[in-house]
């Protein structure tokens, strides 16, 4: 019987010829990614058990990202623990402030993610890295501790769901709209325990930056992982960054899927997920033009360079609306520097945005744009649960960087195509 790409990767890492969904396997891990919130408790657990050495420092990547630059004394303590631990363990792949980035963005950007890998991180958006043909899944701190100590972890082999994306995205519609559409159709538990596998002609138009946005949000449908086949686009992305060798796995034609969906992306429009679930996506033409107190452009979902280019293209020559604070947070230091060289930071600053250093920041209500009671925010982030970005009475709307930029200019939820059409008419 044929296997999916996910089954093949898990089989290859657990010394098995073949495996089937539902089995529990112990898989060897190729990369363990560590950040400042969930790693310090994992390290504390290991110390308590007298385990003072990680299994292999070369397979670990460390970057503080959630609450850095340290937002308060308690988070300074977490970062300090992380820093001291990585030094003690001799972990070379370390991205300190000034060189840092959100873990799911910096790991592939810096060439640490290779097709065929198994990857875990104490963070639910680890699924992002599946866009490079890897099995990447988020875990808690105990799993992280076990992974750091032994280099392997138990997994229940997930069933796979197949999403075939066909056609070409219309102008003003982006990969964020694709994933918000999918989640609106299957719900926040529609892929619970499952691997969300993507294929189809529409992928050919999507850069790695755009693809990461789709796999990033697998967890918002309850998915264990998101995964895409390796093609020329992903291979070029990897080869520009590293000369390390890798193995490509492909789903068999007769692989078994629990569900199959075909989406004609030509039919999509910009989507906004209304408060307070990522599955509340509506086409932008169907919703009220709610006033926004804040617009947030960034995060592991949409803080990559292409996202900033899209936002800057719309914002160029405009000012953000009075009463709509607009915060731009590049996902990594490299993205920030590229945005500077390309003049994007100037466009944002001239428009009246604040540009931050890389951080998870206000995406999870940490800092750099926390919302007050009854405030509204249109955000390019990944979840809009009650209290996610601050006060439990605040309201978060999720959308693409283009919709965020258009909304920042008008101050109310705005279709980015209004601006793109006007620009095209002028040109």
């Amino acid at each position, binding site marked *: 019987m044929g296997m999916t790409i996910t089954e093949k990767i898990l089989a290859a890492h657990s010394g098995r010829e073949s495996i089937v969904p539902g089995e*529990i396997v112990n898989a060897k891990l190729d990369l363990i990614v560590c950040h400042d*919130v*969930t790693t*310090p*408790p994992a390290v*504390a*657990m*290991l110390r308590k*058990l007298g385990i003072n050495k990680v299994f292999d420092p070369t397979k670990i990547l460390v970057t503080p990202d*959630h*609450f850095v630059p340290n*937002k*308060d004394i*308690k*988070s300074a*303590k*977490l970062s300090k623990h992380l820093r001291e631990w990585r030094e003690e363990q001799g972990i070379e792949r370390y991205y300190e402030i000034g060189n840092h980035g959100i873990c799911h963005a910096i790991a592939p950007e810096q060439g640490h993610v290779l097709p065929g890998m198994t990857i875990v991180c*104490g*963070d*639910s958006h*680890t699924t992002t890295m599946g866009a490079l043909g890897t099995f990447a899944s*988020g*875990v*808690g*701190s*105990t*799993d992280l*501790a*076990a992974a750091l*100590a*032994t280099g392997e972890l*138990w997994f229940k082999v997930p069933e796979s769901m197949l999403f075939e994306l066909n056609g070409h995205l219309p102008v003003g519609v982006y990969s964020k709209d694709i994933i918000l559409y999918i989640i609106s159709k299957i719900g*926040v*538990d529609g892929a*619970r*325990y499952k691997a969300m596998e993507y294929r189809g002609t529409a992928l050919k138009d999507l850069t790695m930056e755009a693809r990461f946005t789709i796999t990033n949000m697998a*967890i918002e449908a*309850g998915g*264990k992982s998101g995964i895409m086949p390796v093609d020329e686009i992903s291979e070029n992305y990897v080869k520009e960054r590293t000369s390390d060798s890798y193995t490509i796995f492909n789903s068999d034609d007769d692989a078994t899927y629990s569900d199959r969906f075909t989406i004609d992306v030509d039919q999509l429009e910009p989507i906004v997920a209304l408060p307070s*679930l990522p599955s509340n996506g509506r086409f932008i033409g169907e919703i009220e033009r709610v006033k926004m107190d804040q617009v947030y452009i960034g995060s592991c979902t949409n803080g990559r360079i292409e996202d900033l280019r899209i936002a800057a293209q719309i914002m160029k020559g405009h000012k953000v609306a009075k009463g709509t604070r607009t915060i731009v947070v590049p996902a990594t230091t490299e993205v920030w520097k590229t945005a500077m060289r390309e003049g994007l930071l100037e466009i944002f600053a001239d428009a009246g945005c604040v540009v931050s250093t890389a951080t998870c920041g206000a995406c*999870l*209500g*940490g800092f750099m744009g*926390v919302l007050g009671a009854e405030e509204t925010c249109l955000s390019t982030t990944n*979840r809009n*649960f*009650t*209290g*996610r970005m601050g006060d*439990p009475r605040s309201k978060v709307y999720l959308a693409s960087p283009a919709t965020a930029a258009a909304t920042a200019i008008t101050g109310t939820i705005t279709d980015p195509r209004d601006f793109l059409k006007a620009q095209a008419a002028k040109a």
Partner: protein
Amino acid sequence: MPELPNTFKGAAHVYERAHINTDEIIPARHLNVHEEAELAKYAMEDIDTGFIKRVKTGDFIIAGENFGCGSSREHAVWALRGAGIRVVVATSYARIFFRNAINNGFLAIECPEAIEMVKTGDEVEIDIQAGKLRNLTTGKEAGFVPLSDFARELIEDGGLLPHIQKKAAKA
């Protein structure tokens, strides 16, 4: 490690809504610490500010579908355990929360009937061997699929790390 008892008894705190997420169970503004006692002060803060005043050691949370979805923060399990919760009974779980629960030796039972037959304040009892949930206040009963052997072994060993150590000692 003492043997895991088969029955647990406690007062219920019922949250019928689906998709209670880890941002609600322990908001991220409190993730700058990871000590259980400290996290416990804020358990369920964004969904029920009265919870922490009412909860007593040994109590149960009874919840709807997809409990614990969202962020992978294990702090959610620690906050509930720190607050005194001994067992969560939900219609279904988000996978990372379930994994974190059993990795901590914390009981997460799946019983879809529970939210229909239990009200906040009722005394409930579960028998994890028999797969039975009893509402001691009303006398109603429901069955549930007992934990898998693998999950039960992890919980009996006190969680994933003691389990790994035990296996390593045997090898």
